[in-house]
């Protein structure tokens, strides 16, 4: 192990990613991510100081359309596929007030 990433890092990242990982998953993930980051160090050999980042492959510009009302997805059909819906809306557990 090269210690490029620690168990504490992985615990923090799992929280950011909203993934409830078991302790043994954290251990395994730490070792696997460490191995990958070691491989990815190959790009450290490159001088990238004057290179412009490339975020997408085709030079497209922002697309605008007239701001007019158009038919959207069927409201009831969308809600029918939700894990839980109520009164025409998605139903979720409390957002605030429990875990602080």
């Amino acid at each position: 192990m090269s210690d490029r990433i620690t168990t504490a890092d992985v615990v923090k990242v799992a929280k950011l990613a909203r993934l409830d990982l078991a302790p043994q998953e954290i251990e395994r993930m730490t070792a696997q991510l460490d191995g990958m980051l070691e491989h990815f160090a190959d790009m450290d050999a490159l001088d990238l100081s004057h290179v412009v980042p490339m975020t997408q492959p085709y030079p497209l510009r922002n697309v605008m359309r007239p701001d007019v009302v158009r038919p959207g997805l069927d409201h009831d059909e969308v809600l029918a596929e939700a894990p839980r819906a109520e009164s025409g809306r998605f139903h979720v557990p409390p957002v605030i007030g429990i875990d602080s």
Partner: protein
Amino acid sequence: MSTSASAPSSSSASSAPATAASIAAQVRAGEVRAVDVLEQHLARIDARDGEIHAFNHVMTDRARAAAAAVDAAVAAGGAVGPLAGVPIALKDNMCTHGVPTTCSSKILDDWKPPYDATVVTKLVAAGAVIIGKTNLDEFAMGSSTENSAFGPTRNPHDTSRVPGGSSGGSAAAVAAGFSPVSLGSDTGGSIRQPAALCGVVGVKPTYGYVSRYGLIAFASSLDQIGPFATDVHDAALVLDVIGGHDPQDSTSIPERHPSLVDVLDRGVEGVRIGRITDLPEGADPDVVERLEAAFEALSEAGAIIVDVEVPAFGYALTAYYLIAPAEASSNLARFDGVRFGMRVDAADTNAMYSATRAAGFGDEVKRRIMLGTYALSAGYYDAYYGRALKVRRLIHDDFARAYQQADVLLTPTSPTVAFPFGAKGDNPLAMYLCDLYTIPTNLAGHPGMSVPFGTGADGLPVGVQVLAGTLDEPTMFRVGAALERAALATAARSQS
């Protein structure tokens, strides 16, 4: 060189799978009925998909209704499209209205989209009959289809081996004769690599060539839909139907695309074929032997072989495995138990999100989300994601220089033939190396295709990859067609 119109495998009489082009011609002429074509294919699925597992879902009833509608249109003398009565399978990450679309993930198990993807709408308008949804590595993350939550797909050429991935179900469906053509998606090789391993043609078009509206996103700056087919002509036929601008996808290219079917018999006289002299090593000797034979065949057909360098090619794997997971970690944030799929109940939303995602995602998806989240997180963004974007620029620029000297580049598609189940063990990096030769093209946004070119170890299929510059699909398809003619001529010689 003589051109052979029929595939060598056609000796197996009337049960031999027909091409999409021949089916459409016969259905349009009223010589065969679309419903009969469909029943033949459903019978093949019934007989063998229990073993192969190409499909997550066979759309028997809907397909029968669609085929009957095509027959009715033909009988009424109405206009029928270029894919009239052609059964087609779709990778199960493309939305089909009211039909389960799972991405082979537990988190979307049984989710039924409220709309059709644009490719679905275009295929139906062209008269195609959608026969089912095919298996994939969960959320298209993998190179063997072993990462499916519903079990792996088997390679029809040797069922102890993988079909490749992530579009393994779509590749296997065509190789097994379940449908003459299918669609996959390619983020880092997910069409071309399984095409090579299953002995079929697979095409990743230029980024933006095909609308992605209704394709469940993996890595948005890389994903592209493309066809699988038994020959280059069928691949061109399907791409001519599904390509083109779509107002629903702001990344689809506005320019009109020329017909690819029309260019196939133009030959390769004078076309410059690039040999990448600094291509990363790693391909098996049997695969390298086929690549050399491909250079020879194209040279004999009048093409000019030139040496080119693509120095950044070797850094593509690193750039890809930082950029794709980073984009995936963002795209897959939508699977949170609120709007679709499964939910694990918990006391508050944050606990519900984390529990749902932990239960719903498989190991590889979790690994990529973690890697991507890490690469984007405060303190590491510049070192990983930021540097990867700069490496991407180097790769793009190196290819641009190479395409000044060569019209297309030729490489292996996969470093090996199809490998046995479990061969990559618990080593994610070993699996990632399967995409060594396909990934750079996705980063550059260029088109690439895999064409079957004989067999390698254990008599298993080998694919040769043809790469071209942005929107140069016409030249790529001409070279693909020339390779196919050479492969058929060789096969015919060895049979006689």
